[in-house]
């Protein structure tokens, strides 16, 4: 180990990357952020407000960006190749630069499931079918002709999650609460609208999530129907006809909606898989990166010097991601301490 400041390549400048970089630089290291997109922030940048306190996503990002202002950041930059060196790693970036680093932190996050792959829901085909991301964008911009002034709105949980045929048997963890959050926001925006949530199970594990649920039920009268939407058709007026089974009464139900929101799930990021293979880091059977140990070493990979933070190892909430980013920074710190 030479006596220079260790350099850590942080792949992905979403909230995990930003927070980890901030912590690393605070610990005296030199993190370098590499972001594929033209701007930092990842998925959170596309979101409007965050549960459970309905804090604006922009506020969180602002504080994270402020904390990383002095850190070298490559945006709009892909990684052409990764290589292992004797004491570190080399990254060739799409801007031609070669980055030699002492450790790599995967903060590659997740991909939102491509809802058009669930063909029966008609995303990209029917005019009134949008995804959770589209709705958050609408909350941000108030501009999406598909939204209009709906009188009946449906939310389909588990789109691309817990669905072997969609290739994802895992639960995306945050969609239940996101659906309820968005349903509440829609109901507040359009108080006369009937709002339906079609769920398989409601997995409301986090702090205050159940309060959201009770509020949605009691105060806002949002209808919860236990049953997966089986198919969506388009009525003559362009509205969508949704069919599902109300499994609790054992009867099929049909409802015509002005807006159908698909809760696209969290799936693995194929880029992360690609980089992992290049570095010889194990990928789990669900496609997410494989932790050395799912209890005690979630943020460590199978290779020394390669660490994980956030949703690259599986679906995470924002606070979980931030906590992982911090613990990854600490793990990297200990890694260098040991090598010294």
């Amino acid at each position: 180990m030479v006596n220079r400041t260790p350099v850590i390549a942080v792949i992905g400048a979403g909230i995990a990357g930003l927070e980890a970089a901030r912590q690393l630089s605070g610990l005296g290291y030199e993190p370098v952020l590499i972001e594929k997109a033209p701007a930092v922030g990842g998925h959170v940048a596309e979101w409007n407000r965050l549960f459970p306190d309905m804090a604006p996503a922009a506020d969180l990002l602002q504080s994270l960006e402020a904390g990383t202002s002095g850190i070298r950041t490559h945006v709009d930059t892909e990684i052409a190749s990764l290589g292992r060196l004797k004491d570190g790693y080399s990254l060739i970036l799409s801007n031609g630069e070669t980055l030699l680093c002492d450790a790599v932190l995967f903060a590659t996050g997740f991909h939102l499931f491509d809802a058009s792959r669930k063909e029966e829901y008609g995303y990209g085909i029917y005019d009134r079918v949008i995804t959770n991301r589209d709705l958050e964008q609408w909350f941000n911009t108030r501009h999406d002709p598909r939204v209009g002034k709906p009188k009946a709105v449906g939310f389909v949980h588990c789109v691309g999650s817990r669905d072997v045929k969609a290739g994802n048997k895992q639960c995306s963890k945050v969609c239940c609460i996101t659906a309820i959050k968005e349903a509440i926001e829609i109901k507040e925006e359009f108080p006369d609208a009937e709002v339906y949530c079609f769920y398989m199970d409601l997995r409301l594990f986090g702090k205050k999530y159940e309060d959201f649920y009770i509020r949605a039920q009691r105060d806002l009268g949002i209808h919860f129907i236990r049953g997966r939407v089986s198919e969506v058709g388009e009525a003559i007026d362009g509205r969508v006809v949704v069919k599902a089974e109300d499994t609790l009464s054992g009867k099929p139900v049909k409802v015509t909606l002005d807006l159908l929101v698909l809760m696209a799930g969290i799936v693995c990021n194929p880029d992360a898989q690609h980089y992992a293979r290049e570095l010889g880091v194990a990928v789990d059977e669900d496609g997410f990166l494989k932790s050395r140990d799912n209890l005690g070493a979630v943020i460590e990979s199978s290779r020394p010097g390669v660490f994980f933070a956030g949703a690259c190892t599986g679906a995470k909430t924002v606070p979980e991601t931030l906590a992982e980013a911090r613990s990854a920074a600490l793990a990297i710190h200990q890694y260098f301490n040991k090598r010294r």
Partner: protein
Amino acid sequence: MMDFGFKLSPSSAVNLDTVDRARYDRLVQLVPDARTCIDCGSCSATCTAAPWSGMSVRKVLLGLQRGRDDEVDAMLSKCMLCGKCTMVCPRGINTRQLILTLCRLDRKGEVVR
């Protein structure tokens, strides 16, 4: 009309666009907690009247929202108001109030006078 020896069978599907929820809507106006049911089924499992009418507060609430009024009334017909369901409800719904209120509503959701 001609008899073919078979008939159109009515759809078992519930059309939420047209289903009449008047009774449910009035009920939740009077007993807002009724909306917080999570269909856990504790009430059905503990019900004293269940052996005689299949009574289940959970199904009553669901039936009201799905326009199955006859089933709802049949279930209510044997309720003895013993209050066990209220005791076991994890959401703290006052099921006795719910039932008594419901019994006072006609099919149109009006309180009978």
